[in-house]
């Protein structure tokens, strides 16, 4: 039997609330600690208990971290979902299940391998307590997998020890359950197992972290002092991440008091109002939410745009519309975030692709919000936010300080000849602001969502209103120069592929698969909206362009067409919106189809 190393997809099918998450997490972490690149995906129900849940780990020494279609090893621990789980296994793959109850004949597949372990029976004599027994079932299959896949046992048992460091009593029974599973696999199951692991150097110095936690840490380093939020999957862990690290890193040593304030608001309207009130009063503030929250925040976002108040919003997107599939991923909020609120309103968006970028963009967003005096929306998604991903380590440039933008203090006000909050002194559309309480005589102004002149005085003059709107448009042009640039890999091919956010994970694999089809494409990863000149240039330089969107309505394509006045036919959409993250297979298939239908030449596309 042939054995492949460090290259497979394993999926654990469990029942929500059965304690499988920590066992499955340990599995992934063990491989990571052996230096093997892994990507984890938690496919969970919007429920606390009983419904089916899946945990998928992509193991890839070459470092393909996107989702891949088909499962090599199915650990089927939920009899309710046997049918779909068994169907998902690739021919030649493995079904690992609890054969304490026999698998019915009609479920058997001749093209896969069955590995039955009588887990329930094994646990029965070992643990008296019913709860413990079902918990240790998860640890038992972990032990069996360790044996079959050749996971270093020290790594896994060491992990049990750190995991339960606080509950010493649990360490021994866990290690025992591991050993029971391992022993059974060693004595009764067929060797060699077709998928195995071996120590690698491919991980390098990378870390394994979820995007929300990274963004929360980024908000600490970026100097956020006020966080207001309302719980919603998949954004909750971002605020919690901020809270955890703020408590570690931002408590005054002498007084023990907090250099931050976190408020769990009564709803998203209030969360955004708190952020705006704090931003107006000179604190760096942010909130985190998902699509439904963005809808509620719309009126306030318009106020912050028009009254020019810094605010940072993380939109960790999930599948809409409405409550949609609340625990599945999507890039479905681009339009609603970009143009959130009534009137001519538009907002700066940032699109992180990795946890490291969640960290960086959190700090960048806080800087940009102050610099541009406007809301900055960081468009993450469930895939990036809630799953443990391989990431470059977090780092902070030692020379870097926070950019608080154009703020006049008392001395600045005394030095200035005049002060007008909305005077465009520098010609970039951005005025100087003052914090409340700065100066006894100068610099106070009235902030409002109604029309005002350069000195913040209420006006209904058509001309002054028009002038103000034009200045906001000029500020938008300034934003184009300040936001993170697109990442471009251009080799002069005729075709280009444009993508953003988590569509980056399957991209290297996509490019490699397409080259097997003799299709070569240049790549551009968009990192922000408004689009910089480099985006226009890339589009100009290519004869045909694909735009990858993880939504039904081609929302990035819409933004490109709308903002750059493009011919809609000049961009070909690659779409996926069924709630899992997009796979290389999906992109490849759609690109191939387009090439075939349009009889485009293969690998002759290198321009002279």
């Amino acid at each position, binding site marked *: 039997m042939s054995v492949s190393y460090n290259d497979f997809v394993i999926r654990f099918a469990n029942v929500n609330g059965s304690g499988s998450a920590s066992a499955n997490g340990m599995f992934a972490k063990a491989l*990571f*600690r052996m230096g093997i690149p892994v990507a984890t995906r938690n496919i969970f129900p919007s429920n606390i208990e009983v419904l089916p849940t899946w945990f998928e780990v992509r193991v890839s020494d070459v470092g393909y971290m996107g989702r891949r279609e088909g499962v090599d090893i199915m650990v089927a621990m939920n009899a309710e979902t046997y049918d779909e789980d068994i169907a998902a296994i690739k021919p030649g793959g493995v079904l690992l299940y609890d054969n304490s109850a026999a698998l019915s004949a009609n479920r058997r597949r001749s093209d896969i391998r069955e590995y039955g372990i009588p887990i329930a029976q094994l646990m029965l004599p070992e643990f008296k307590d019913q709860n413990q027994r079902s918990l240790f079932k998860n640890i038992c299959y972990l032990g069996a997998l360790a044996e079959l896949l050749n996971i270093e046992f020290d790594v896994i048992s060491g992990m049990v020890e750190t995991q339960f460091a606080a509950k010493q009593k649990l360490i021994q029974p866990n290690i025992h359950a591991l050993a029971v599973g391992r022993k059974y696999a060693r004595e009764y199951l067929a060797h060699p197992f077709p998928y195995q692991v071996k120590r690698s150097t491919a991980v390098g110095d990378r*870390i*394994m*972290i979820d995007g929300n936690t990274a963004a929360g*840490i980024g908000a*600490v*380093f*970026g*100097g956020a*002092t*006020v966080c*207001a939020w309302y719980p919603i999957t998949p954004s909750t862990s971002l605020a919690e991440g901020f809270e955890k690290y703020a408590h570690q890193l931002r408590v005054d040593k002498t007084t*023990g*008091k*907090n*250099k*931050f*304030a*976190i*408020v769990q*608001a*009564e*709803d998203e*309207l*209030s969360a*955004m*109002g*708190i952020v*705006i*009130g*704090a*931003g*107006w*009063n*000179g*604190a*760096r*503030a942010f909130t985190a939410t998902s699509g439904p929250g963005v809808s509620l925040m719309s009126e*306030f976002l318009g*106020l912050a745009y028009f009254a020019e108040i810094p605010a940072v919003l993380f939109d960790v997107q999930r599948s809409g519309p409405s409550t949609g599939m609340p625990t599945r991923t999507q890039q479905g909020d681009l339009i609603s975030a970009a143009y959130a609120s009534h009137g001519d309103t538009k907002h700066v968006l940032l699109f992180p692709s990795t946890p490291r970028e969640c960290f960086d963009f959190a700090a960048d967003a806080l800087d940009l919000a102050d610099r541009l005096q406007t809301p900055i929306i960081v468009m993450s998604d469930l895939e990036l936010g809630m799953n443990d991903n391989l990431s470059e*380590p*977090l*780092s*902070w440039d*030692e020379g870097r*300080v*926070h950019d608080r933008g154009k703020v006049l203090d008392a001395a600045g006000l005394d030095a200035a000849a005049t002060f007008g909050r909305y005077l465009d002194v520098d010609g970039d559309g951005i005025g100087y602001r003052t*914090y*409340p*309480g*700065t*100066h*006894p*005589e100068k610099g*106070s102004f*009235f*902030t*409002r*969502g109604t029309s005002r002149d350069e000195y913040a005085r209420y006006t209904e003059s058509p001309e002054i209103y028009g002038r103000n709107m034009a200045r906001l448009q000029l500020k938008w042009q300034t934003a184009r120069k300040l936001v993170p640039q697109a990442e471009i890999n251009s080799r002069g091919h005729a075709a280009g592929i444009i993508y953003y956010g988590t569509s980056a994970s399957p991209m290297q694999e996509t490019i490699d698969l397409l080259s097997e089809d003799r299709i070569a494409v240049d790549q551009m990863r968009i990192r922000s909206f408004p689009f910089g000149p480099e985006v226009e240039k890339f589009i100009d330089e290519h004869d045909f362009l694909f735009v990858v969107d993880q939504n039904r309505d081609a929302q990035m394509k819409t933004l490109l067409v709308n903002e750059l006045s493009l011919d809609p036919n000049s961009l070909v959409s690659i779409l996926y919106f069924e709630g899992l993250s997009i796979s290389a297979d999906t992109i490849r298939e759609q690109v191939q189809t387009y090439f075939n239908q349009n009889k485009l030449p293969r690998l002759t596309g290198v321009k002279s």
Partner: protein
Amino acid sequence: MTFVAKPRVHHPLLPINDIGLTRRDYEGSVSTLCAGCGHDSVSAAVIAACAELSIPPHRFAKVSGIGCSSKTPSYFLDKSHGFNSVHGRMPSVATGANLANRSLYCIGVSGDGDSASIGLGQFAHIVRRRINMLYLVDNNGTYGLTKGQFSATNDKGSTSKRGVPNLYEPIDLVTLALQLGASFVARSFSGDKRQLVPLIKAGIKHHGFALIDVISPCVAFNNHSGSTKSYDYVRHHSESVTKIDYVESGQEITADYEPGTTEDVEMPDGSTLRLSKVDANFDPHDRIKALQYVQRRQSEGEVVTGLLYVDPESPDCHDILETIDTPLNELDFADLCPGNAALAPINQSFR
């Protein structure tokens, strides 16, 4: 932190306060509200109170929602920053502002529509959060700015309108605030300076959330069918409710009465409001008694005014959150960013 205001040339007859300023220094721009609007009387009382407290004008932060009432922060304290936000959401903006800089005196102004209808949720939650601020509701029992629709504070019993009856139960912000744990709750009448100014001063100085529900008559819209200025009349006799082109100028309605007495006030809609001032023996330290007292009097057709409840010891939101004494907006880079070295152990914990 001390701020010394520059000496100015003062009107010789205006009293000068402890920091050398007169009430002129606490004024704002000229009001654009209807002549006689109760809200202007409230603004005047705020100006008097702030001047008497001798707080430098720029140490206030003013916040409001949307409505005639919410416009009034323009009409007082023009040396301080103001924020006229969105309808019903002043409480959240005030929360953020207070979290960012705890050293400023925060004054919020709202209306009955702003706080009891669209903003009732935010109102309830800011009370719970105990934000250190003075929260003024200019309560006229109507939507002034959108031209006289019914508001949720119209009391079925006490104000007994002669015209269209209010069919729905009223929301009383005073009892609500008492129930939700406000540490300073008062009610007053816009035209009763003698009562209102000291209450505002006490509310500003109070550490914690201070509500003053100020009954503040709208002289333009009266909400009874006999009135040609009522919403219903306008709705039925004009193409659009926004086309009112003549507003009779009204007289400021005043009241001046002794503690422990009642006074009947003629309201612009022709109804009579019976105000009942708590007397010197009233104990404002008992939340439950205050609730009972207000409700009993209400059932007898009286609107109780005065300081109804105060707890000078209760913690505010910053005490609860244990934030540092320095205003958060004054923390500098070194306070806020732990620097690259702090990332090494964090990275290690994710390996």
